[in-house]
Protein backbone atom coordinates (compact mmCIF):
# COMPACT_ATOMS: atom_id res chain seq x y z
CA UNK A 1 0.00 0.00 0.00
CA UNK A 2 1.24 3.49 -0.84
CA UNK A 3 2.44 5.70 2.00
CA UNK A 4 -0.37 8.18 1.31
CA UNK A 5 -3.03 5.48 1.64
CA UNK A 6 -1.51 4.13 4.83
CA UNK A 7 -1.46 7.64 6.26
CA UNK A 8 -5.12 8.16 5.36
CA UNK A 9 -5.95 4.88 7.12
CA UNK A 10 -4.01 5.91 10.21
CA UNK A 11 -5.71 9.31 10.41
CA UNK A 12 -9.14 7.75 9.81
CA UNK A 13 -8.59 5.48 12.79
CA UNK A 14 -7.38 8.35 14.98
CA UNK A 15 -10.22 10.70 14.04
CA UNK A 16 -12.97 8.08 13.79
CA UNK A 17 -13.89 9.42 10.38
CA UNK A 18 -13.12 8.70 6.75
CA UNK A 19 -10.10 10.94 6.13
CA UNK A 20 -9.13 11.89 2.58
CA UNK A 21 -5.46 12.82 2.05
CA UNK A 22 -4.55 14.99 -0.93
CA UNK A 23 -1.61 17.04 -2.19
CA UNK A 24 0.77 14.53 -0.61
CA UNK A 25 4.34 15.51 -1.56
CA UNK A 26 7.76 14.95 -0.10
CA UNK A 27 9.61 18.15 0.64
CA UNK A 28 13.33 18.61 0.12
CA UNK A 29 15.53 19.58 3.04
CA UNK A 30 14.79 18.31 6.52
CA UNK A 31 17.84 16.08 6.40
CA UNK A 32 17.17 14.52 9.81
CA UNK A 33 13.57 13.49 9.00
CA UNK A 34 11.61 12.72 5.86
CA UNK A 35 9.15 15.59 5.54
CA UNK A 36 5.87 15.41 3.60
CA UNK A 37 3.20 18.08 3.18
CA UNK A 38 -0.43 17.09 2.74
CA UNK A 39 -4.03 18.22 3.17
CA UNK A 40 -6.57 16.15 5.08
CA UNK A 41 -10.35 16.42 4.83
CA UNK A 42 -13.08 14.66 6.82
CA UNK A 43 -16.67 15.10 7.96
CA UNK A 44 -17.66 16.09 11.47
CA UNK A 45 -21.43 15.88 11.47
CA UNK A 46 -22.57 18.07 8.61
CA UNK A 47 -19.31 20.04 8.53
CA UNK A 48 -16.36 19.29 6.28
CA UNK A 49 -13.06 19.88 8.06
CA UNK A 50 -10.02 20.62 5.90
CA UNK A 51 -6.55 21.11 7.36
CA UNK A 52 -2.97 21.26 6.18
CA UNK A 53 -0.47 18.98 7.91
CA UNK A 54 3.19 18.03 7.89
CA UNK A 55 4.28 14.41 8.29
CA UNK A 56 7.79 13.96 9.70
CA UNK A 57 8.91 10.37 9.48
CA UNK A 58 12.19 8.89 10.70
CA UNK A 59 14.42 8.17 7.71
CA UNK A 60 16.27 4.94 7.08
CA UNK A 61 19.43 6.98 7.62
CA UNK A 62 19.97 10.64 8.33
CA UNK A 63 22.49 13.31 9.16
CA UNK A 64 21.21 13.39 12.70
CA UNK A 65 19.87 10.62 14.86
CA UNK A 66 17.68 12.31 17.41
CA UNK A 67 15.01 11.29 19.88
CA UNK A 68 11.50 11.63 18.51
CA UNK A 69 9.91 11.69 22.00
CA UNK A 70 12.07 14.58 23.18
CA UNK A 71 11.17 16.56 20.08
CA UNK A 72 7.48 15.88 20.66
CA UNK A 73 7.66 16.95 24.31
CA UNK A 74 9.51 20.15 23.59
CA UNK A 75 7.14 21.06 20.75
CA UNK A 76 4.16 20.48 23.04
CA UNK A 77 5.77 22.69 25.69
CA UNK A 78 6.74 25.39 23.18
CA UNK A 79 3.20 25.49 21.87
CA UNK A 80 1.79 25.72 25.39
CA UNK A 81 4.19 28.59 26.12
CA UNK A 82 2.84 30.53 23.13
CA UNK A 83 5.94 30.26 20.98
CA UNK A 84 5.47 30.21 17.21
CA UNK A 85 5.76 26.47 16.67
CA UNK A 86 3.52 23.95 14.97
CA UNK A 87 1.13 21.97 17.14
CA UNK A 88 1.91 18.26 17.09
CA UNK A 89 -1.28 16.33 16.49
CA UNK A 90 -0.07 12.73 16.61
CA UNK A 91 3.13 10.97 17.60
CA UNK A 92 3.61 7.36 16.60
CA UNK A 93 6.63 5.58 18.02
CA UNK A 94 5.89 2.16 16.55
CA UNK A 95 6.86 1.19 13.04
CA UNK A 96 3.54 -0.48 12.24
CA UNK A 97 1.44 2.22 10.58
CA UNK A 98 4.05 3.87 8.33
CA UNK A 99 7.03 1.48 8.61
CA UNK A 100 9.00 3.92 10.77
CA UNK A 101 8.16 6.22 13.72
CA UNK A 102 6.65 9.57 12.75
CA UNK A 103 4.70 12.55 13.93
CA UNK A 104 2.03 14.62 12.24
CA UNK A 105 1.89 18.33 12.97
CA UNK A 106 -0.28 21.17 11.82
CA UNK A 107 1.03 23.08 8.83
CA UNK A 108 1.60 26.74 9.61
CA UNK A 109 1.51 29.47 6.97
CA UNK A 110 4.76 30.82 5.59
CA UNK A 111 7.66 30.15 3.26
CA UNK A 112 10.93 28.42 4.12
CA UNK A 113 14.34 29.91 3.39
CA UNK A 114 17.67 28.29 2.59
CA UNK A 115 20.33 28.17 5.37
CA UNK A 116 21.31 31.73 4.55
CA UNK A 117 18.62 34.33 4.01
CA UNK A 118 18.59 35.06 0.25
CA UNK A 119 20.60 38.18 -0.60
CA UNK A 120 18.18 39.05 -3.38
CA UNK A 121 15.15 39.52 -1.12
CA UNK A 122 14.04 43.12 -0.41
CA UNK A 123 15.92 44.93 2.36
CA UNK A 124 12.75 45.65 4.35
CA UNK A 125 11.86 41.98 4.30
CA UNK A 126 15.33 41.05 5.55
CA UNK A 127 15.07 43.68 8.31
CA UNK A 128 11.75 42.24 9.48
CA UNK A 129 13.11 38.71 9.55
CA UNK A 130 16.26 39.85 11.39
CA UNK A 131 14.11 41.62 14.01
CA UNK A 132 11.80 38.62 14.53
CA UNK A 133 14.71 36.18 14.51
CA UNK A 134 16.25 37.65 17.67
CA UNK A 135 12.92 38.61 19.29
CA UNK A 136 11.73 34.99 19.09
CA UNK A 137 15.07 33.69 20.36
CA UNK A 138 14.81 35.99 23.37
CA UNK A 139 11.26 34.72 23.97
CA UNK A 140 12.44 31.11 23.80
CA UNK A 141 15.18 31.81 26.33
CA UNK A 142 12.91 33.80 28.66
CA UNK A 143 10.00 31.33 28.57
CA UNK A 144 9.14 29.43 31.73
CA UNK A 145 10.10 25.98 30.47
CA UNK A 146 10.32 24.62 34.00
CA UNK A 147 6.55 25.08 34.33
CA UNK A 148 6.15 22.39 31.66
CA UNK A 149 6.43 18.64 32.06
CA UNK A 150 9.97 18.30 30.75
CA UNK A 151 11.50 16.00 33.34
CA UNK A 152 12.91 13.88 30.50
CA UNK A 153 15.32 16.74 29.78
CA UNK A 154 18.29 16.78 32.14
CA UNK A 155 19.26 20.30 33.20
CA UNK A 156 23.02 20.71 33.73
CA UNK A 157 22.44 23.86 35.82
CA UNK A 158 24.92 26.70 36.38
CA UNK A 159 28.66 26.19 35.97
CA UNK A 160 30.58 24.47 33.22
CA UNK A 161 28.19 21.50 33.06
CA UNK A 162 26.28 22.79 30.03
CA UNK A 163 29.43 23.30 27.96
CA UNK A 164 30.93 20.03 29.22
CA UNK A 165 27.84 18.07 28.20
CA UNK A 166 27.64 19.70 24.77
CA UNK A 167 31.30 18.98 24.00
CA UNK A 168 31.00 15.38 25.23
CA UNK A 169 27.84 14.78 23.21
CA UNK A 170 29.30 15.96 19.91
CA UNK A 171 32.69 14.34 20.46
CA UNK A 172 30.92 11.03 21.09
CA UNK A 173 28.95 11.42 17.86
CA UNK A 174 32.13 12.36 15.99
CA UNK A 175 34.00 9.31 17.33
CA UNK A 176 31.07 7.04 16.60
CA UNK A 177 30.46 8.18 13.02
CA UNK A 178 33.84 9.20 11.58
CA UNK A 179 35.10 6.93 8.84
CA UNK A 180 38.66 8.25 9.08
CA UNK A 181 40.69 10.54 11.39
CA UNK A 182 39.98 14.26 11.08
CA UNK A 183 42.86 15.98 12.89
CA UNK A 184 41.35 19.44 12.31
CA UNK A 185 38.20 18.49 14.19
CA UNK A 186 40.27 16.85 16.93
CA UNK A 187 42.20 20.12 17.31
CA UNK A 188 38.81 21.81 17.67
CA UNK A 189 37.63 19.40 20.37
CA UNK A 190 40.95 19.88 22.21
CA UNK A 191 40.47 23.66 22.16
CA UNK A 192 36.91 23.30 23.46
CA UNK A 193 38.12 21.11 26.34
CA UNK A 194 40.58 23.79 27.40
CA UNK A 195 38.11 26.63 27.16
CA UNK A 196 34.88 25.36 28.74
CA UNK A 197 32.92 28.44 29.82
CA UNK A 198 30.75 28.70 32.89
CA UNK A 199 27.15 29.79 32.67
CA UNK A 200 25.22 31.43 35.49
CA UNK A 201 21.84 30.19 34.26
CA UNK A 202 20.56 27.55 31.90
CA UNK A 203 17.45 27.66 29.77
CA UNK A 204 15.88 25.71 26.95
CA UNK A 205 18.22 25.91 23.97
CA UNK A 206 16.62 25.37 20.57
CA UNK A 207 19.76 23.67 19.32
CA UNK A 208 19.32 24.41 15.62
CA UNK A 209 18.39 28.10 15.67
CA UNK A 210 19.35 29.45 12.26
CA UNK A 211 18.11 30.70 8.95
CA UNK A 212 16.54 27.81 7.08
CA UNK A 213 14.65 26.62 10.15
CA UNK A 214 11.84 29.16 10.18
CA UNK A 215 8.90 30.09 8.00
CA UNK A 216 8.17 33.70 7.11
CA UNK A 217 5.43 35.61 5.34
CA UNK A 218 5.81 37.91 2.33
CA UNK A 219 6.81 40.82 4.55
CA UNK A 220 9.54 38.72 6.15
CA UNK A 221 7.73 38.30 9.48
CA UNK A 222 8.58 34.92 11.00
CA UNK A 223 5.48 32.76 11.31
CA UNK A 224 7.02 29.62 12.79
CA UNK A 225 10.24 28.27 14.25
CA UNK A 226 10.82 24.68 13.21
CA UNK A 227 13.23 21.78 13.74
CA UNK A 228 13.40 21.43 17.51
CA UNK A 229 14.91 17.95 17.51
CA UNK A 230 18.19 19.11 19.10
CA UNK A 231 16.51 21.15 21.87
CA UNK A 232 17.93 20.73 25.37
CA UNK A 233 18.64 22.67 28.55
CA UNK A 234 21.90 24.54 28.24
CA UNK A 235 23.64 27.89 27.94
CA UNK A 236 21.55 30.37 25.90
CA UNK A 237 24.79 31.51 24.26
CA UNK A 238 24.76 28.19 22.43
CA UNK A 239 21.89 29.34 20.21
CA UNK A 240 23.59 32.68 19.56
CA UNK A 241 26.87 31.01 18.62
CA UNK A 242 25.09 28.58 16.29
CA UNK A 243 23.05 31.35 14.62
CA UNK A 244 26.19 33.47 14.11
CA UNK A 245 28.38 30.64 12.82
CA UNK A 246 30.37 31.44 9.66
CA UNK A 247 28.83 28.33 8.02
CA UNK A 248 25.39 30.00 7.88
CA UNK A 249 26.78 33.44 7.08
CA UNK A 250 26.92 35.25 3.80
CA UNK A 251 28.50 38.60 2.86
CA UNK A 252 29.33 39.30 6.50
CA UNK A 253 25.74 38.78 7.61
CA UNK A 254 24.98 36.09 10.20
CA UNK A 255 22.37 33.80 8.71
CA UNK A 256 22.33 36.20 5.75
CA UNK A 257 20.38 38.64 7.94
CA UNK A 258 22.63 41.20 9.67
CA UNK A 259 26.11 41.50 11.14
CA UNK A 260 26.93 39.51 14.24
CA UNK A 261 27.31 42.76 16.23
CA UNK A 262 23.85 43.92 15.16
CA UNK A 263 22.37 40.53 15.92
CA UNK A 264 23.85 40.42 19.41
CA UNK A 265 22.87 44.03 20.20
CA UNK A 266 19.33 43.20 19.12
CA UNK A 267 19.28 40.07 21.31
CA UNK A 268 20.50 42.10 24.29
CA UNK A 269 17.67 44.62 23.80
CA UNK A 270 15.06 41.90 23.39
CA UNK A 271 16.23 39.69 26.25
CA UNK A 272 17.38 42.38 28.67
CA UNK A 273 20.57 40.39 29.26
CA UNK A 274 24.24 41.05 28.50
CA UNK A 275 25.83 38.74 25.98
CA UNK A 276 29.26 37.36 26.79
CA UNK A 277 31.15 37.56 23.48
CA UNK A 278 33.77 35.04 24.62
CA UNK A 279 31.00 32.51 25.19
CA UNK A 280 29.49 33.25 21.78
CA UNK A 281 32.93 32.52 20.31
CA UNK A 282 33.17 29.25 22.25
CA UNK A 283 29.78 28.17 20.94
CA UNK A 284 30.71 29.15 17.38
CA UNK A 285 33.66 26.77 17.67
CA UNK A 286 31.39 24.13 19.20
CA UNK A 287 28.79 24.74 16.48
CA UNK A 288 31.38 24.25 13.77
CA UNK A 289 32.57 20.89 15.11
CA UNK A 290 28.95 19.94 15.81
CA UNK A 291 28.01 20.67 12.20
CA UNK A 292 31.02 18.64 11.10
CA UNK A 293 29.91 15.74 13.34
CA UNK A 294 26.39 15.96 11.90
CA UNK A 295 27.87 15.92 8.39
CA UNK A 296 29.98 12.87 9.23
CA UNK A 297 26.86 11.04 10.44
CA UNK A 298 25.44 11.67 6.97
CA UNK A 299 28.67 10.57 5.31
CA UNK A 300 28.62 7.33 7.30
CA UNK A 301 25.01 6.68 6.22
CA UNK A 302 26.07 7.24 2.63
CA UNK A 303 29.30 5.24 2.93
CA UNK A 304 27.50 2.35 4.63
CA UNK A 305 24.93 2.35 1.80
CA UNK A 306 22.05 3.03 4.20
CA UNK A 307 21.17 6.10 2.16
CA UNK A 308 21.44 6.88 -1.54
CA UNK A 309 20.70 10.60 -1.20
CA UNK A 310 23.44 12.50 -3.06
CA UNK A 311 22.88 15.44 -0.70
CA UNK A 312 24.72 13.42 1.95
CA UNK A 313 27.77 13.22 -0.33
CA UNK A 314 27.54 16.98 -0.86
CA UNK A 315 27.26 17.56 2.89
CA UNK A 316 30.43 15.49 3.34
CA UNK A 317 32.35 17.54 0.82
CA UNK A 318 31.27 20.70 2.63
CA UNK A 319 33.50 19.57 5.50
CA UNK A 320 36.20 21.45 3.59
CA UNK A 321 34.42 24.70 4.37
CA UNK A 322 33.90 23.77 8.02
CA UNK A 323 37.61 22.89 8.41
CA UNK A 324 38.70 26.28 7.11
CA UNK A 325 36.18 28.10 9.27
CA UNK A 326 37.19 26.13 12.35
CA UNK A 327 40.88 26.94 11.96
CA UNK A 328 40.03 30.62 11.41
CA UNK A 329 37.98 30.63 14.64
CA UNK A 330 40.95 29.03 16.45
CA UNK A 331 43.34 31.59 14.99
CA UNK A 332 45.30 29.00 13.03
CA UNK A 333 46.13 30.52 9.68
CA UNK A 334 47.46 29.33 6.37
CA UNK A 335 51.09 28.29 6.36
CA UNK A 336 53.70 27.48 3.71
CA UNK A 337 54.53 23.90 2.77
CA UNK A 338 56.35 21.76 5.35
CA UNK A 339 60.12 22.02 5.22
Amino acid at each position, binding site marked *: MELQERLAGYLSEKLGADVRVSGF*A*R*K*SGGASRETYLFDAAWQEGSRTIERGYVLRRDPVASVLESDRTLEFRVLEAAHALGLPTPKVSWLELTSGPLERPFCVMERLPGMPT*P*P*TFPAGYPLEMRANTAADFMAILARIHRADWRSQDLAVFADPGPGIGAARRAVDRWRDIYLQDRL*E*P*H*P*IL*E*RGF*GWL*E*RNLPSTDATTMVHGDYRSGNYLHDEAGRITAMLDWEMAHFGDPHEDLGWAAMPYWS*CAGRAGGLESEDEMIARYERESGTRVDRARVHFYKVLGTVKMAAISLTGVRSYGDARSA*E*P*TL*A*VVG*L*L*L*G*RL*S*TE*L*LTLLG*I*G*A*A*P*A*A*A
Partner: protein
Amino acid sequence: MRPDLGDILSGIQRLLTNDLVPALTATPFLAEQAMYATLVLEYCKKAWPGLHLALAEEHGDLLATLGTAAERLAQDSTAHALATAIRGELDGDVAGVTTSTLDVLAKRNESLRALVSRAIELLDAGTEPAAGSPLHAARATIDAYLARHAARQHRELELLGLSW
Protein backbone atom coordinates in the same frame (compact mmCIF):
# COMPACT_ATOMS: atom_id res chain seq x y z
CA MET B 1 40.86 4.39 -23.89
CA ARG B 2 37.45 5.69 -24.90
CA PRO B 3 34.99 5.86 -23.41
CA ASP B 4 37.13 7.17 -20.60
CA LEU B 5 35.83 7.97 -17.15
CA GLY B 6 34.89 11.51 -18.18
CA ASP B 7 32.85 10.20 -21.15
CA ILE B 8 30.99 7.76 -18.91
CA LEU B 9 30.22 10.26 -16.16
CA SER B 10 29.09 12.81 -18.76
CA GLY B 11 26.80 10.21 -20.28
CA ILE B 12 25.17 9.47 -16.95
CA GLN B 13 24.75 13.21 -16.37
CA ARG B 14 23.01 13.57 -19.76
CA LEU B 15 20.71 10.68 -18.94
CA LEU B 16 19.78 12.26 -15.60
CA THR B 17 19.34 15.80 -16.89
CA ASN B 18 17.70 15.14 -20.27
CA ASP B 19 15.60 12.07 -19.55
CA LEU B 20 15.09 11.34 -15.87
CA VAL B 21 14.59 14.83 -14.43
CA PRO B 22 11.87 15.79 -16.97
CA ALA B 23 10.11 12.49 -16.23
CA LEU B 24 10.06 13.29 -12.53
CA THR B 25 8.08 16.53 -12.62
CA ALA B 26 5.30 14.96 -10.54
CA THR B 27 7.76 14.10 -7.79
CA PRO B 28 9.84 17.23 -7.17
CA PHE B 29 11.79 15.59 -4.36
CA LEU B 30 13.13 12.88 -6.69
CA ALA B 31 13.81 15.42 -9.45
CA GLU B 32 15.88 17.42 -6.97
CA GLN B 33 17.79 14.31 -5.91
CA ALA B 34 18.58 13.64 -9.57
CA MET B 35 19.88 17.19 -9.94
CA TYR B 36 22.09 16.70 -6.88
CA ALA B 37 23.35 13.49 -8.45
CA THR B 38 24.45 15.43 -11.55
CA LEU B 39 26.24 17.91 -9.27
CA VAL B 40 28.12 15.07 -7.57
CA LEU B 41 28.99 13.52 -10.94
CA GLU B 42 30.35 16.88 -12.11
CA TYR B 43 32.52 16.95 -8.98
CA CYS B 44 33.76 13.41 -9.77
CA LYS B 45 34.61 14.43 -13.33
CA LYS B 46 36.67 17.38 -12.10
CA ALA B 47 38.28 15.64 -9.12
CA TRP B 48 39.25 12.35 -10.72
CA PRO B 49 42.07 13.54 -13.03
CA GLY B 50 43.89 15.25 -10.15
CA LEU B 51 43.13 12.75 -7.42
CA HIS B 52 46.44 10.89 -7.56
CA LEU B 53 48.37 14.15 -7.46
CA ALA B 54 46.27 15.37 -4.54
CA LEU B 55 46.90 12.19 -2.56
CA ALA B 56 50.60 12.32 -3.40
CA GLU B 57 50.76 15.94 -2.23
CA GLU B 58 49.09 15.05 1.05
CA HIS B 59 51.38 12.04 1.46
CA GLY B 60 54.47 14.20 1.04
CA ASP B 61 53.10 16.77 3.46
CA LEU B 62 52.30 14.11 6.06
CA LEU B 63 55.80 12.58 5.82
CA ALA B 64 57.47 15.98 6.19
CA THR B 65 55.16 17.12 8.99
CA LEU B 66 55.47 13.93 10.99
CA GLY B 67 59.26 13.82 10.49
CA THR B 68 59.65 17.34 11.88
CA ALA B 69 57.09 16.76 14.64
CA ALA B 70 58.89 13.56 15.73
CA GLU B 71 62.18 15.43 16.06
CA ARG B 72 60.54 18.00 18.31
CA LEU B 73 58.51 15.52 20.33
CA ALA B 74 61.64 13.44 20.96
CA GLN B 75 63.11 16.37 22.90
CA ASP B 76 60.41 16.08 25.57
CA SER B 77 60.37 13.07 27.88
CA THR B 78 56.54 12.95 27.96
CA ALA B 79 56.44 12.59 24.18
CA HIS B 80 59.27 10.10 23.65
CA ALA B 81 57.00 7.11 23.07
CA LEU B 82 54.96 8.88 20.43
CA ALA B 83 58.09 10.20 18.69
CA THR B 84 59.42 6.63 18.53
CA ALA B 85 56.10 5.35 17.18
CA ILE B 86 56.04 8.03 14.48
CA ARG B 87 59.63 7.29 13.45
CA GLY B 88 58.81 3.59 13.29
CA GLU B 89 55.86 4.31 10.98
CA LEU B 90 57.89 6.64 8.78
CA ASP B 91 60.80 4.17 8.52
CA GLY B 92 58.33 1.54 7.39
CA ASP B 93 56.76 3.80 4.79
CA VAL B 94 57.03 1.90 1.56
CA ALA B 95 54.09 3.51 -0.22
CA GLY B 96 55.79 4.66 -3.38
CA VAL B 97 53.44 7.35 -4.54
CA THR B 98 53.99 6.68 -8.22
CA THR B 99 53.51 2.93 -7.93
CA SER B 100 50.65 2.83 -5.43
CA THR B 101 47.05 2.59 -6.50
CA LEU B 102 44.70 5.29 -5.26
CA ASP B 103 43.09 3.12 -2.60
CA VAL B 104 46.47 2.03 -1.17
CA LEU B 105 47.73 5.61 -1.08
CA ALA B 106 44.50 6.87 0.48
CA LYS B 107 44.69 4.19 3.19
CA ARG B 108 48.33 5.03 3.88
CA ASN B 109 47.49 8.72 4.23
CA GLU B 110 44.70 7.79 6.60
CA SER B 111 47.18 5.89 8.81
CA LEU B 112 49.60 8.81 8.80
CA ARG B 113 46.79 11.25 9.56
CA ALA B 114 45.93 9.08 12.58
CA LEU B 115 49.45 9.79 13.87
CA VAL B 116 48.80 13.51 13.52
CA SER B 117 45.67 12.95 15.59
CA ARG B 118 47.71 11.16 18.25
CA ALA B 119 50.14 14.07 18.38
CA ILE B 120 47.24 16.49 18.83
CA GLU B 121 45.81 14.33 21.60
CA LEU B 122 49.16 14.33 23.39
CA LEU B 123 49.61 18.10 23.03
CA ASP B 124 46.09 18.70 24.33
CA ALA B 125 46.48 16.38 27.31
CA GLY B 126 48.39 18.73 29.59
CA THR B 127 48.63 22.48 29.96
CA GLU B 128 49.30 24.46 26.79
CA PRO B 129 53.01 23.98 25.92
CA ALA B 130 55.19 26.94 26.93
CA ALA B 131 56.51 29.19 24.18
CA GLY B 132 59.96 28.08 23.05
CA SER B 133 59.51 24.52 24.32
CA PRO B 134 59.89 21.51 22.02
CA LEU B 135 56.20 20.71 22.46
CA HIS B 136 55.29 24.27 21.47
CA ALA B 137 57.38 23.84 18.34
CA ALA B 138 55.68 20.51 17.65
CA ARG B 139 52.30 22.22 18.05
CA ALA B 140 53.34 24.85 15.49
CA THR B 141 54.41 22.14 13.04
CA ILE B 142 51.11 20.30 13.44
CA ASP B 143 49.03 23.50 13.17
CA ALA B 144 50.81 24.46 9.97
CA TYR B 145 49.94 21.04 8.54
CA LEU B 146 46.30 21.50 9.58
CA ALA B 147 46.16 24.83 7.75
CA ARG B 148 47.56 23.26 4.57
CA HIS B 149 45.21 20.29 4.93
CA ALA B 150 42.23 22.63 5.23
CA ALA B 151 43.42 24.50 2.13
CA ARG B 152 43.53 21.20 0.23
CA GLN B 153 40.02 20.31 1.41
CA HIS B 154 38.88 23.75 0.32
CA ARG B 155 40.35 23.24 -3.15
CA GLU B 156 38.35 20.00 -3.39
CA LEU B 157 35.21 21.84 -2.36
CA GLU B 158 35.78 24.44 -5.05
CA LEU B 159 35.51 21.64 -7.62
CA LEU B 160 31.97 21.08 -6.40
CA GLY B 161 31.14 24.64 -7.39
CA LEU B 162 28.83 25.17 -4.45
CA SER B 163 29.33 28.31 -2.39
CA TRP B 164 27.40 30.98 -0.55
